[in-house]
């Protein structure tokens, strides 16, 4: 489990909108499957969570599981482990001292624990299920 938090200097409604509507601005360039720092990343209400590179390539980054503005968001997350073995991110927003406390809880879902914990090659680009399965085998071989 990864637990982190940040203090955002804005109200809770704005904090939720900043997180969900301006993803392209806060998502680190170093962790974009496209390697394109100008790509557009979208988190759609109850739906798709994906990246569109300037050259038209699309990468699924996950899926929106729960969408409860402005307090709560749950995402299936493919970065690092691939769509066949998603992890889960719970994001909560709470008012605090004139701003908003943003909390992140990120954990592996059943089936992703090995990729989460073991020393495996890290792939920024999104994987498909075949590739993820291959990697599991390679990880086993390298143990």
């Amino acid at each position, binding site marked *: 489990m*990864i637990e*982190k*938090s*940040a*203090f*955002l*200097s*804005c109200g809770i409604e*704005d*904090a939720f909108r*900043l*997180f969900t509507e*301006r993803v392209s*601005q*806060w*998502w*680190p360039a*170093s*962790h974009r499957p496209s390697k394109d720092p100008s790509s557009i990343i979208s988190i759609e209400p109850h739906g798709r969570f994906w990246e569109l590179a300037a050259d038209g390539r699309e990468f699924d980054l996950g899926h929106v599981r729960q969408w409860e503005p402005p307090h709560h968001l749950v995402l299936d*997350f493919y*970065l*690092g*482990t691939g769509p066949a073995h998603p*992890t889960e991110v719970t994001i909560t927003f709470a008012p605090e001292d004139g*701003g*908003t406390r*943003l909390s*992140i809880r*990120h954990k*592996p879902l059943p089936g*992703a624990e090995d*990729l*989460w*914990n*073991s*020393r*495996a*090659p*890290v*792939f920024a*680009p999104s*994987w498909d299920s075949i*590739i993820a399965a*291959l*990697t599991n085998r*390679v990880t086993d*071989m*390298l143990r």
Partner: protein
Amino acid sequence: MHPLDAIGNPIRRAILKNLQGGPLSVNEIAGRFPVSRPAISRHLRILMEGGLVEPRSQGKRNCYAIRLKGFQPARKFLDEFWDAALARLEELSKQ
């Protein structure tokens, strides 16, 4: 070269496994496989392009070693992701 392409070959996976014991020279690696030295060099180049192996000189010997940065748990990769993302979110919220 994508890391997955780099490990999508049985010889390259076997080379990685051999390098887990420590750095080896091209000749040492070639001696363990029934393939030519140029072929081993080619596999090593692909592994390097995939970020999984790096050159390492040991005295006068030019060796190759597993590049640890290319191998890390997803947890660490995502931990770094959130540190960078949250710092940026805090910054953006001030504007």
